[in-house]
């Protein structure tokens, strides 16, 4: 079996390599890909959209419809993981570990036992038990706001430097996941529940589609941001720049919420009681 697979793979590889002799050279400025369509993008995108970052301009304006579906793909992935994994089971039947906060003693309540009433003195910890670590918790508490600020910078500066909605959204999601890793899953769920992240994900994609629909209602084609100029009270070209910013915000919101939603479902295998 391994031998057959190896021979097949070598055959396929050499066949494809055989065809590469007709490819344009690497880095050739006169290759068809670099001389047919992209000179228009490079030379005209600043004039058309007032956005210096050509990649963002092409992503969110010229090929904005693709990006809308890309955001929908990531939303569909979050929805699919929820659909496949989530189990709404009762929580009272499993074994739990509690720690007494002043002395550090761990108690183990077996199935069906009575939980301690005094929740200010006892806190619940995960069964994959790690020692109480003040350093990690405090450091993360200091880092997370900086990460979020940087993520907002990345989203807002997508026009002028590498960045944009997807990149900033992932960083925002990572900040919440850092909270979930350093503390535990339940405290993060209290701060940002699954319902909130699901609704934010849908809202993010709705911002994108809604912007396009607004353009449609104003009489132009779908996702033609110039139609928003009267609403935004700016010139037609600046309206494109603002339109790109609005959809990038929508994308960032959706990606952040889906990253968190995916983490909740995959790390706890759908049960939302204990994370990593």
């Amino acid at each position, binding site marked *: 079996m391994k031998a057959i697979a190896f021979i097949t*793979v070598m055959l396929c590889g050499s066949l494809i390599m055989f065809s590469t002799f007709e490819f344009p050279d690497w880095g050739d400025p006169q290759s068809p890909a670099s001389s047919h369509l992209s000179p228009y993008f490079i030379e005209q995108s600043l004039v058309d959209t007032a956005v210096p970052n050509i990649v963002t301009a092409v992503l969110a304006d010229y090929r904005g419809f693709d990006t809308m579906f890309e955001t929908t793909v990531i939303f569909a992935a979050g929805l699919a993981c929820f659909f496949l994994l989530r189990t709404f089971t009762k929580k009272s039947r499993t074994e739990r570990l509690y720690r007494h906060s002043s002395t550090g003693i761990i108690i183990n309540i077996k199935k069906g036992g009575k939980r301690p009433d005094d929740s200010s003195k006892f806190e619940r910890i995960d069964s994959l038990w790690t020692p109480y670590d003040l350093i990690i918790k405090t450091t993360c508490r200091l880092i997370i706001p900086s990460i979020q600020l940087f993520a907002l910078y990345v989203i807002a500066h997508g026009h002028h430097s590498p960045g944009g909605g997807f990149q900033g959204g992932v960083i925002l999601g990572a900040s919440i996941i850092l909270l979930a890793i350093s503390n535990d899953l339940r405290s993060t769920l209290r701060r940002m529940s699954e319902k909130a992240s699901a609704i934010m994900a849908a809202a993010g994609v709705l911002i994108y589609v809604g912007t396009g629909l607004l353009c449609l209602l104003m009489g132009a084609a779908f996702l033609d941001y110039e139609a928003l100029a009267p609403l935004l009270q700016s010139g037609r070209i600046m309206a494109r720049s603002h339109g790109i910013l609005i959809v990038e915000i929508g994308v960032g919101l959706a990606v952040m919420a889906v990253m968190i939603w995916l983490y909740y479902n995959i790390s706890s295998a759908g049960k939302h009681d204990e994370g990593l």
Partner: protein
Amino acid sequence: MNDLITLVASKYNYWAFIILMMLGLYAMIVKKNLVKKIIGMNIFQTSIILFYISVGAKEHATIPIIEHSHGAETHPIQAINYINPLPHVLMLTAIVVSVATLGVALALAIRVYRQYGTLEENEIQSQINQV
């Protein structure tokens, strides 16, 4: 000999992506662990992303961000100074799609593990055949 060297130097990026693609394909076919198959699929998708990006490269050209829009009026923007932005745009989409597929694949793998207790293909097959 000189010809051969220029040939290799101008095409080795494409050969790199082919080798990566074949590695991914081999992993998907041969490995018995489900997670290893998923990783092979990811390598396969990454090699195609690498191919697209290498299509967009240009010699002596810089990244496609026009420096400081207020300075752009002084010198004209020439296409030869900036690399091709279109493959980057396309591959942003492809990367997001591959991450989404990886998420759904892992969710399915968790369900398989919950049902059969193992992630090895031959053990799962023997469990199915026993039923």
